[in-house]
Every structure is written in structure tokens, then in C-alpha cells.
């Protein structure tokens, strides 16, 4: 992997995945060599009304179709950064710029929250259709798109079920499909699978990867789970303890057609995981950052 200073993070959207790590695994349809930027975060600082600084000097660029995972110590501002990207909060200083996307995407972004946001009074199919109803999508198109999403996620037999009848993993799938149903250019995921068991988490990561790849959706995932981050991301951003800064960035070049179920058995994964863990542990202990791109 090519070392890169954190000051160069602003141009990371067009990075070339580290070939040494996954050579022979990438296919022709894998991660493209460069991506036009979709979102630019410039020198963003965020302080709570109490004055406590949550984020400091964040520079980040998200490329079209790119998947970024953000990891870091608890309370380092990962979820706050996601709120700023979603426009739910405004930065204290700096800017978050979303660039126009003229492709097939209907919405700029949607989000899957850590907390369960599935509407309990709507059936599975009605949940998936909620965003499309808000956007006045014609009923026929709504039904057709819902059918294909439910089929893809293996939920077609539960379309008329209320969420209460679903397992935790199925509810998360419904939340994911609801977010994807509005055809977003970017999907923000705030620790969406943290409450689930390991096999279900891996299955859902595979779902996200498949759907993001299929529909060209860019993804930013906040997670505590390094295995999840490696399984899904093109880049992993490690943040420092509060106030959150970008400490280092890891390129993960497995491509979007990776098999997340067998990925953990590969030597490349075995190589990356301990280095990522060391970096995260250093961040938790507050060690001085190497300031390098890994």
C-alpha cells in the first residue's frame, strides 16, 4: 500500500486500490481506477452547543460508487460526521459539498440508522415504498421496484408481514431496502448491524455490497467492527479520539465483487486486519498518528 499523508486526503476519491494486497482478486468489473467526486468535506469542525468539540479539521472526499468505512474510538464523532453529511446537523466551520449527480439516482442520499426506524404499522412492502410515496413515484413503478428489491433481499414471502413478525436481521434488511428504494446516489450507514449476530452481519454486508454494486450507490459506513469494515470498504478511515480527526486511511482493494463469506480466510485479510487493529488501538490509547496513508 502506498503511504500518503493526511493532508493529501482531499484528493483520495480518485485513488487506485492497492494492487499488492489483492492482486488477482479484482475483476474487470471491480473498483474502477478513478471516480469523480460526489461529496467533498472541507476542513469541517463541529462543536456541541456546550462548546465541546466533536470534530476537528475533517477533510474527506467520497467518489461515485465508492464505499468508505469509518472506524474509531467510541465518542470520536463518527456518527456526528454522518449527521453532517446527511445535513441533519450543520458544521461549526468548514463545508460539506454535495456535487450534482445526473445519473439514474432519484435522491441525493438516504440513511440507515443504528436505531430501528422501520415503521411498525406498515407491512414490509409498505415500508419499502414509503420514500417512493413521498416522492410521488407512480404506483406501478413503485410496485415493480419493490418487487425486485424484495426478491433480491429474499423477503418476497414476507411482503405482507408486519415488522414485529420479522427477525432482527430481516428488520435491518427492510430498513436497508427502504433506504435503497428511493434510488439514492449515496447511502449512509450508521452502525446499522451492530446489534446483530456475526453470521447475520456478514450476510447483510454481502447484501449492501451487492446492492451498492448493482445500482452504483456510494456508501459511507460507520462501524466498530473492523471485519465488517474490511469486508465492505474500498477505503477505511481511522479517526482519532475526540475531537475526531482523520488519523489514517487504509486502501482495501478487494473490489465490489468480493466474496465476503470467504474473504476472512485469505492471507490479504489476515495481513490487513492486525495492522488496522494496531492503528485503532493506537487511536484509542491516544498515540500520535503516523500521519500516513496505509
Amino acid at each position: 500500500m502506498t503511504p500518503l499523508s493526511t493532508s493529501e486526503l482531499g484528493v483520495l476519491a480518485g485513488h487506485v486500490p492497492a494492487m499488492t494486497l489483492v492482486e488477482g482478486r479484482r475483476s474487470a468489473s471491480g473498483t474502477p481506477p478513478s471516480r469523480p467526486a460526489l461529496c467533498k468535506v472541507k476542513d469541517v469542525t463541529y462543536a456541541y452547543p456546550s462548546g465541546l468539540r466533536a470534530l476537528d479539521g475533517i477533510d474527506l472526499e467520497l467518489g461515485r460508487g465508492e464505499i468508505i468505512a469509518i472506524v474509531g474510538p467510541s465518542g470520536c464523532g463518527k456518527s456526528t460526521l454522518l449527521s453532517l453529511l446527511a445535513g441533519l446537523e450543520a458544521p461549526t466551520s468548514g463545508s460539506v459539498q454535495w456535487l450534482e449527480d445526473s445519473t439514474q439516482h432519484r435522491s441525493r442520499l438516504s440513511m440507515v440508522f443504528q436505531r430501528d426506524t422501520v415503521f411498525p404499522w406498515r407491512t414490509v412492502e409498505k415500508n419499502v415504498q414509503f420514500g417512493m410515496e413521498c416522492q410521488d413515484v407512480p404506483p406501478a413503478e413503485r410496485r415493480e421496484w419493490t418487487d425486485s428489491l424484495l426478491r433480491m433481499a429474499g423477503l418476497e414471502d414476507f411482503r405482507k408481514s408486519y415488522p414485529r413478525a420479522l427477525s432482527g436481521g430481516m428488520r435491518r434488511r427492510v430498513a436497508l431496502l427502504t433506504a435503497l428504494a428511493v434510488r439514492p446516489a449515496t447511502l449512509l450507514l450508521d452502525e446499522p448491524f451492530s446489534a446483530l449476530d456475526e453470521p447475520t452481519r456478514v450476510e447483510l454486508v454481502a447484501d449492501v455490497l451487492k446492492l451498492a454494486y448493482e445500482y452504483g450507490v456510494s456508501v459511507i459506513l460507520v462501524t466498530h467492527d473492523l471485519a465488517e469494515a474490511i469486508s465492505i470498504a474500498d477505503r477505511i478511515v481511522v479517526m482519532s479520539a475526540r475531537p475526531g480527526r482523520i488519523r489514517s486511511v487504509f486502501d482495501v482493494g478487494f473490489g465490489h465483487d468480493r466474496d465476503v463469506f470467504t474473504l476472512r480466510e485469505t492471507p490479504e485479510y489476515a495481513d490487513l486486519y492486525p495492522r488496522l487493529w494496531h492503528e485503532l488501538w493506537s487511536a484509542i490509547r491516544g498515540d500520535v498518528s503516523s500521519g500516513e496513508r496505509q
Partner: protein
Amino acid sequence: MSAQTQLRVAEVSVERAATEAPALKVIRPMRSEPPRPSTVWFLRIAIVVVSLVVWEYVPQIAGIRGPFPVLDPFFISSPSRLAVELGHLFTGSGGQVSIWEPLAVSVLTALAGTIGGALVGIIAGLAVSNWPLLDAVSRPFLVVLNAIPRIALIPIIVLIVGGSWKAGVLTSGIIVFFLIFYNAHAGASSVSLQTIQNAELLGSSKLRVMFRVRFPYALAWTMAQAPNAVAHGLVGTITGELFIGGRGMGYLMALAIDNQNATLLFGIVTVLAVIGVILVLGSSWLSKKLLPWWETSQGA
């Protein structure tokens, strides 16, 4: 001790432990068994029968009625007299007025007041939960209004709308409004911030959030209060009729008091109790029909 001897000792110990182990004791689960429905119904019916027998025959015992004159059937009537009186009320025989017209007047008045008060209450609760400014401004006024005893408003209502059915509707409507308003407000406010944010990110307007996201919760909380609201609506109507007169059950009660007819009073109370139960069961049925998701989630 050699290793072989140690091994032998260990084997003997294991054998002894196995032979001397106490027999396994079956431990009963902590959870107690639910009572059998047949037992429950038997006990319920027994309570009714015993109460009726005591009510009918105990006042006939001179030794008991002497020190307790209140047990005289003149004051508390008796089940046999009540049965005859109910027969007269429903058939309009025995010189008694028919109960059907006053009953229809009271039930319709109570229903109109309850439905009206519930509708206004749910809309107001929703609106206040959806717009924080409205909530902040209106809260002290609502607290003051809620603190006023509703019965004290009846004379004012009569002054304004006159002693007609409108006064009954307004009385029960005001009582139900406050009950429903606070429940609808609490229900609509119980929606998590993330759920609201999610709906907004999916393209929902503020108004759509109110009707599509907050409303189902407000309705669920309202329906949970519906049996109580219906019962209070009926109380409001009867109380209003006692004040106002008119042609409802309250008027019939006033008539019974004037004639010192305890049996008629007990008859009216029995009929009102049955009507109350029917309305409460009806609201529970409606709740199940309107909110299958809520029923499921509560039952799990």
C-alpha cells in the same frame, strides 16, 4: 504413593461418587401455571350468584335489618324487584315509561360527544407534538384548562347553548377531549428522533411526517385510552342530563329520585352498566381492527 496407586485411588473415588450420588431431584419451574378458564368462570359466576342471594335475602332477616336500616329494600331494592322493573322498563308496561327513547338519546349524545372530543383531541395532540412552537405557547393554557373541574363547566355550557342535547354533547366532548389530547400528544411525541429524521431524508414533508409517521402512534395511544374515554363520555352525558333535564337517562334518573324509586334507579344503573360494557367492548374491537400492528406488538 506410586502413580499407579494414585490412579487406582482416583478411580475408586469416581466410582464411589457415582454410586453415592443422591438421586436427581426434579425441580419445578418457577413460573406458575395460568388459572384454568373453567375455574375462573366458575368463580366469577359464583360471586354473582352469592351477591344476588345476599342482596335478596339478607335484608329480609329482621335481626340484621334492624340495626342497619339502610338495608331496607326501600333504599337498596332487591334483585327480584329489579328484574320486574327492568321488564317494565323495556316493555313500557306496569305504568312505567319505556326506556328505549331515553336510552337512545343518551347513547347517541355520548357517542357524538365522545367521537367529536376524540377527533378534536387527536388533531390537537398531533399538531402540538409536531410543531414545538405551538407546544411551547399552548402548554400553560392547556394545563390551566385541564385543571378546571369539567362538571363546573356544565352551567356555563347550558348558558351558552341552552338546555338541549347540545349541552350533553359538549359536556362529554370536553371531558373526552382532554383525555384523548394528552394521550395523542404523548403517542405522537414517542416517535424516535431517528424515525422522524429517516422519514425526512426519504423525502417526507413536515405535514406528511405528522400524518404518516406521528399519526399511527397517536392513534394507537388514543385507542388504548378509548374504553376509558367512552366510559367518561357516558358519565359526562348523564351528568349533563341530570343538570339540564331533557329526555335522556339522566332525566329518567332525576324522575326516579323525585319519586324515591330505588328500584327504578337500580334499573337505570344496570342498563347504563350494560351499555358501558357494550361501548367498551366495541371500542376494543375497533382498536383491534384499526391497529393490527399495535395489537401484535403488544402481545409479543
